[in-house]
């Protein structure tokens, strides 16, 4: 009687596929996970993510094949609760937190998650970016009151960071989004520059460098400095910055950068600032690291049409793959249409090329939520 599992192959979008499966309640089978690789099968962080998924759900069945190249996942119900998870050092906590943010609002109870490991590594979203740039996206869908506290910062490779996320808001379904009229003007740029186990001066140098690049925009810029000391500075030295360009209506663009080996704080600051400008230049409502969460939240909505404006640069391979995964899971498709100029003499003529993505929600209801 139960529908057969959805088949995927390959290891890309591993997290997203599991998330979609959990939200839709359909079993999935992922095979050929790095089957041609020198080290075949699941990586430690992927297994760790599966463990975390098992912890926040009830009744999930995870079967990993002997070689680790195939996974069968039968999702249970999202129950949340108070969970502590040790993340492997190969990925930052953002790798685990980003998908969990999508699940937690549709669970049975509130989620209080403590993640231990690397707080930002330049590959996965840093904790500051999640707080300042990802939470506002959720607020747009009526999912509020998220709290993220950085108890300890942990730079790669040794990590030692600790983050506590409290997600108290459990909703039936996200509200339908309508954001397809015009790209909002940016009113301010904010950011956090942080360092662990290095001279506090490096933070100021990052800030100076970033402001140097951003001053050309003429936008009000303020970057906070967060110098972790003693206990709260993890095990490795490191520094980085997370920048957010905010609009008045709550949308934001973000970019972040961390110091690599042999890099000066100036390099890091300038790189982040330029990346931010690049993201802003794409146009649309969101930047590339927010778009996946946004699309998923739009899909699991009421059976109404929601719209969002996306820059051309934001629509990339990952985006296409996500839409295809969504189609195999729910059978729903999106419509992408070029945004026409609001009026003929609009100055958007040589502005970014933008597209309106209209999505009909799948009529999702959080069925685990208890009746009042």
């Amino acid at each position, binding site marked *: 009687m139960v529908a057969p599992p959805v088949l995927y192959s390959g290891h890309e979008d591993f997290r997203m596929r599991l998330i979609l499966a959990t939200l839709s309640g*359909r079993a999935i089978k992922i095979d050929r996970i790095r089957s041609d690789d020198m080290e075949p099968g699941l990586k430690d962080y992927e297994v760790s993510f599966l463990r975390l998924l098992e912890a926040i759900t009830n009744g999930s069945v995870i079967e990993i094949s002997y070689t680790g190249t195939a996974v069968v996942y039968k999702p249970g119900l999202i129950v949340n609760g108070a969970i502590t998870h040790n993340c492997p050092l190969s990925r930052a906590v953002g790798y685990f937190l980003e998908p969990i943010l999508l699940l937690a609002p549709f669970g049975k109870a509130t989620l209080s998650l403590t993640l231990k490991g690397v707080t930002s590594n330049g590959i996965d979203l840093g904790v500051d970016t999640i707080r300042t740039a990802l939470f506002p996206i959720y607020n747009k869908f009526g999912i509020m009151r998220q709290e993220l506290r950085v108890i300890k910062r942990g730079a790669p490779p040794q990590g030692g960071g600790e983050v506590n996320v409290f997600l108290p808001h459990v909703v039936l379904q996200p509200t339908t989004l309508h954001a397809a009229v015009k790209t909002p003007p940016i009113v301010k740029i904010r950011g956090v520059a942080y360092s662990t186990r290095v001279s506090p001066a490096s933070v100021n140098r990052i800030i100076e460098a970033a402001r140097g690049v951003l001053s050309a925009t003429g936008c009000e810029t303020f970057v906070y400095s967060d110098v972790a000391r003693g206990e709260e500075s993890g095990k490795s030295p490191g520094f980085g910055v997370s920048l957010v360009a905010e609009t008045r209506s709550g949308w934001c663009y973000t970019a972040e950068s961390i110091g690599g080996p042999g890099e000066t704080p100036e390099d890091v600051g300038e790189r982040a600032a330029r990346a931010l400008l690049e993201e802003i230049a794409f146009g649309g409502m969101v930047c590339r690291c927010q778009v996946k969460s946004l699309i998923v939240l739009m899909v699991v909505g009421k059976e109404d049409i929601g719209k969002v404006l996306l820059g051309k640069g934001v629509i990339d391979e990952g985006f296409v793959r996500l839409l295809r995964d969504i189609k195999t899971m729910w059978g729903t498709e999106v419509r992408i249409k070029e945004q026409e100029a609001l009026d003929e003499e609009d100055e958007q003529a040589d502005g970014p090329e933008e597209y309106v993505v209209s999505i009909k929600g799948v009529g999702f209801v959080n069925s685990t939520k208890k009746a009042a």
Partner: protein
Amino acid sequence: MEQENKAHRAVRKKSQKRTVHNGQNARAFAVAAPRRLERQARRSHDVKEKRFHVPMVDRTPEEPPPVIVAVVGPPGTGKTTLIKSLVRRYTKHTLSDIRGPVTVVSGKRRRLTFVECANDMNSMIDIAKIADLVLLMIDGNFGFEMETMEFLNILAPHGFPRILGVTTHLDLFKSPATLRASKKRLKHRLWTEVYKGAKLFYFSGVMNGRYPDREILNLARFISVMKFRPLKWRNEHSYLLADRIVDITHPADIERNPKIDRKITLYGYVHGTPLPAHNARVHVPGIGDLTVSEVERLPDPCPTPYQEKKEVEEGKIKRRKRLDDRLKVIYAPMSDVGGVLIDKDAVYIDVGHRSFVEGEEKGVGERLVVGLQNAQTTLGAGGAGIRLFSGAGALNEFKQERVEDDDVHKGDTGRKVRREGRSISGESYDTDLGNDDEGYDKDEDEDEDDADAEEEAYSKSMASRLAEDDEDQGEEFVFADSDSDLVDYDDVDEFDADSGDLRWKSNLADRALNDYKTGRRKWDIGKLLYLDHISPEDVIKRWKSEELSSTVEDGDEDDIENNSSDSETGDHGDDFFKKRENSSIHPADAEVIDRTIPVYDDEVLKDKWSGAASTALASLKGRFLTGQTDDDEDDEINSSDFDSEDDEEFGDFEDLETGEAVTGASAQKEKEENTGEEEEETLKEKSYEKERELNARKKEKLRLRFEEEEEQEDDGLGDDDPEKKLYDTWHDAQKAKITKQREINKAEFDEMDSVTRERIEGYRAGQYVRIVIDDIPCEFIETLDPTFPVIIGSLLASEDRLGFLQVRIKRHRWHKKILKSNDPVIFSLGWRRFQSIPIYTTSDSRTRNRMLKYTPEHLHCTGTFYGPLIAPNTGFCAVQSVANKAATGAFRIAATGIVLDVDQSVQIVKKLKLVGTPYKIFKNTAFIQGMFNSALEVAKFEGATVKTVSGIRGQIKRALSKPEGHYRATFEDKILMSAVDIIILRAWYPIQPRKLYNPVTSLLLNEKTEWQGMRLTGEIRHEKGLSVPQVKDSDYTTIERAVRRFNPLRVPNSIRSGLPFKSQIAMMKPQKKETYLQKRAVVLGGTEKRKRDMMQKVMTIRNEQVRKRQEKKNERKVAYQKKIAEDEEKRKERERKDKREFFKRQGKKRGASESGGGGKRHRVSDE
């Protein structure tokens, strides 16, 4: 923010007449009765508040599906007659027998689907879930019956649709007074069941097999103006009532294995939300969960006049010349009506049964055929030949050209295989076939489309074609020539004449090449997105028009795909044995590690965003709303002069806070300036004036834009965003929001073409669709009975898994039996009907869920069972059996309730009391035996609280080493070593509900009303004649309690002497002297003696009187008892007689129903 005010209304002039109250002291006359005023205000507010409903989205499309009108009632109440009468009223069509749903057009924009509900619990449950309007048939002469009450109670938990009561058989009342009284009684009973003021129709007798026209007309009118409120479940699910079911399994497969799973098509109107286009999961109650393999939209078999009018306006069909009664459409494929039926698999023509009467031939055709039948000689034998057309000559030779047409050769056996699409143009019109062939083709093509509309277009095209034929005989047709003629045959001419290929595919490559040559190909992302054979990387590359390594030479997508994958490996030469890289599995390196932060190329970014030459930066400036900028920057900008003509549009901005507008050049420009290009500047000085003007205009525009942006922010709702407006109530705001969302949806969907729309939205309500389902058990088709409704209800993704449901449940107060934990019950929840085993629990002050043996009386309790997960707040009802055989005449709805919570595991505990006895008691310590069997068990309960029967609390301390299972416990007081103080340990034992989910597969049975699932233990015992096993310990025995004697408290002297004075026990010494009372002697005498004597006599007399009176009374009593007994005997006799009569009547009623159609019974009036 704008505030909307009411339009100004002129103040009404106060009348000049001054009343006394308008005097100085206005306050004195303000309110005469404040309490009453308050009450009135409160009441009016209450009334207003009651009108509010939770705002619910109405998803009814513009062209709504037919209203499902269910006719429900016990057998013999005239359901079939009512449907016949109504159908007759709407269509002037008399149905002889009704099988399955009947759809009729009832108004300009409304269609009705009538469906009769059989007298069967399964049908009643299914119908209750889909009916929009219920016509509740009540035998007026008999009153409400159990089925009616059951149906009403099924309706309630599944969302109440509209209900109209219809009483029939009112002609059987002999006196008007009884009729009136009976009507009133029925009406009030209905009101208590439905709502006060529910409409009840009274139908008198049947005339000509129908109810009186006037009464039917009234009912029809009432139905036509009825409005329907969306119901929650139906607003979230799509469903359809199958009005046609066809088995399309390959006959050879069936022949090979008659029990093979069948592939069937189901037809019906979509209701509720749109039906997903791909692999929708559905539940068919009575069969189970299934996957739809294919959905296809078909032309509406029963369109409303409004829809037709709209199609005429859009030019889809031709306008009808006149409207006659025949056009009042009826669609009932399973009954005996209908004309031509078209679908993908076949075309069916109903030729009618009684249309032709021999000797009364109507038209030329009939006469011709009859003439031919009566002809003495066989065809062609006469030698005269056949003249097919009046103008043509007689045909003598018969050339057999084509054998392909099945219809002609098989005669009336009907078509067995799918009809091949054939082109009108092409070989069938080879001119050498002659005229006769064309006439022949015409008939065939015609039945594919709507007859009237197409005929004309066809004949026109034929005419032109014939004309052409005459002109150039033997010349081949070119497609392009015929296209203009064949506009109406889009579906036909897409097929290539000989190969059957799609024509548009034929020279795709050439066309694509042309496209490519003429201009840069621009891909539509919407199309590319879901072409699975193109890898996401290619999609993006192509869409962004980046160079692919392979040039897009040919347009065929498959070819492109091959080329591109070739090109990847192409660099390494033509190594045949090279391992093929699968692009979809190994994407670019960046994706391999599933990163979120995109990869940036530092060098590119550096070039782009830094340095004075950054045009990108300049163009980005318009995106920022600059506030107070840094001083140096301001100065820089302010000091800058106007510059070259090619001033960037985004170079200027405005300082909003100061209100000062600054025309800024980009940094780049300034730098250029500073390097000293003065000569250019001087050149441009003349145009300064002009430029200033231009800039001023720009600034103004910019300012307006920013203001506008600030005002409206950026949500898509524009000016009339409900959030922005002020509404009186929350309710109004919600309603406005819903309306707005509806408009957005509509606008968005209207933009799409129908194919895209179906893909994105699905098949929306009101569309007539054909659903193909593979793998349906063959029993469904073999035992198909159209009188049992077949419903296809879509399932949400989350409803497709099993788990534990926690429900709030209450035994129905009319249900006779008590519900017991672990007894199987059939639930009707969501679309499904299934048997499961619930455990009833109660919450012990929210600390635990304690199992109950039985449902409590008149109270809700919690139930937990295994089943498909349905969202909380969904209502359900439960029955113990759905089989008609098991019906005892008692009320069958066992319980109703709602879902509270779903989960994959549950925690239910059962109370467990362990009992032990003390065998050695020290002061507060005692040794207990008989509670545990081993020291290990004791160890588990160390520290647990125990209690004696008398209420002394204690704690388990430690297991004793010697006798296994004995332990030491301490108590708050010394316990007694007797039967009274046994030791009790209260523990909680976790239990799991049994995982039974058994869908009711009634539609797969031969006798669909007799489904039987798992039986109750009691039923099995009863059938097998087994007795309930008795545990000896559970037997009740009389408890003999010896009276306990407690000796008086004695305090030893030694202690007493030591006690302080306060605590001294006051004890008196026994008296030694005799008291006065002991000493005196009493002797009677004098008056006292006389008095006593007197009293003695009086009492004797009195006693005698009383005795006599009592005797008399007893005599009377005996007589009275005798009379009472006689009366009782008489009453019992009368009741027996009544009962006999009642069951005689009842038996007749049931007997009729069981012997077939309800309405056929012979009614006996009580004469």
